[in-house]
């Protein structure tokens, strides 16, 4: 846990950064949940909201970048504070990509919902649940400086990997059985791929949690 400095302006700058990143974490979680709902519940309205939220996420990224630059240039943080600022910047990059992937999922929903045909199966729903639970786990771990979140997120990522493989097999079987549904099958494959990539970003974020709190760089350590 970082100790507060008596420099009120510095603390205000860091508080501002923490607040913005907190908003981005909540937004990423909500975008993925809504995007999945738009697919599973065939709710196009929720899908459109996700696409609108992507602009908010992009704005947060730009704002956090600006604030990170200002903190580095004006206050020259060191040690824990430096890690804290640098990981905020790295985390924002992952969150922005999660936002993009949520947008991709929402577009799948918008494409599939109005038409009849193959729907996401139980494996896809399980995949979605693993990823949304991972996002919640990550957000809470980030706020609590809980380094054990990395283990849980990596377990979730492994399960996502297995489920993605199962989903791939199902899609291949579907392609053989329902060639007329190829367009929908490819869209579902895109959905699975997006969820797998979100799980990778979650692992990055959890690694950044450890680096921020303990200074241990666990990237590429598996």
């Amino acid at each position: 846990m970082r100790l507060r400095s008596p420099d009120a302006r510095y603390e205000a700058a860091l508080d501002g950064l923490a607040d913005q990143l907190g908003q981005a974490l909540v937004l990423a979680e909500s975008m993925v949940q809504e995007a999945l709902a738009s697919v599973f519940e065939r709710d196009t309205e929720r899908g459109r909201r996700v696409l609108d939220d992507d602009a908010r996420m992009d704005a947060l990224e730009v704002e956090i970048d600006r604030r990170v630059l200002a903190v580095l240039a004006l206050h020259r943080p060191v040690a824990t504070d430096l890690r804290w600022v640098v990981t905020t910047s790295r985390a924002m990059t992952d969150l922005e990509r999660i936002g993009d992937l949520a947008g991709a999922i929402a577009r799948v929903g918008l494409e599939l919902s109005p038409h009849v045909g193959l729907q996401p199966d139980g494996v896809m729903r399980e995949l979605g649940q693993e990823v949304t639970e991972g996002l919640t786990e990550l957000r809470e771990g980030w706020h609590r400086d809980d380094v054990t979140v990395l283990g849980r997120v990596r377990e979730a990522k492994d399960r996502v990997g297995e489920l993605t493989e199962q989903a791939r097999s199902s899609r291949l079987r579907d392609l053989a059985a329902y060639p007329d549904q190829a367009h929908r099958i490819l869209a579902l494959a895109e959905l699975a791929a997006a969820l797998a990539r979100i799980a990778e970003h979650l692992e990055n974020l959890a690694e950044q949690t450890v680096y921020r709190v303990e200074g241990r760089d666990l990237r590429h350590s598996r």
Partner: protein
Amino acid sequence: MSQRQLTPRLVVRALSLRVADAPVLQGVHLEVPARGVLAVIGPAGSGKTALLRLLNRTLARGPTVQVEGQILLDGDDLYSERQRLRRVRQRVGHVFPDPVPFPGTIADNVAYGLALDRVADRTQRDLKIERALKTVGLWTRDRAELMRPADDLSRGDLQLLCIARTLALDPVVLLLENVTRSLDPVATRRVERCIRAVAEHRGVLMLTHDLAQAARLSDEVVYLEDGRVIEQGATAQVFTHPRLQQTEDFLAGRTGEGLA
């Protein structure tokens, strides 16, 4: 927020200075905000100190010192013949790099300017002393503490006392000339906190060689080189995206290195 708080109260217009016919400042324009910190940075010999010392007439016109342009405080030209020097220095306070206590106690030091300013009412005087010492963080209810010789204070506390001595006169603008130059990092941070507290209520013009300090403490920055304002703007803007290469070279330490 009143108009008076928004409007810069110290305005420098086309200020030029020649000493023994050599140009020191050339056409300087700047405005010290009604509140907040304006930092003046620049290499040695850029005219920073001369600028600061003109602002409260520590450096005055003379046979070898030619000053042109205007220094306006709330619209009054500080170099007009009607302006009394003592009043100018009361309204534009100046704290120097090395803290020098006057003889006597801590309280005597803060009261010194008040006596010159003929503040005779003891209650009023004590109130001003208390307020000034509170602002710099040296106030204590222990009367014996305030009656200690000022010489007993650490160097950092002495500089805070010097700031309090100036603040007791309730200046409109406070000029700070490398005030942490001789202090250790801990004392420096205490003085910096005091400067931010002062800047909540009045404009502070701070001259510093410490770029990190200018960055963390100021709201606006003026970069001087060869007596000219090269760039000025919001501190975050200047330190992250300076407009001019000259400024960037200075901030990055590439000025005056004799680079090929």
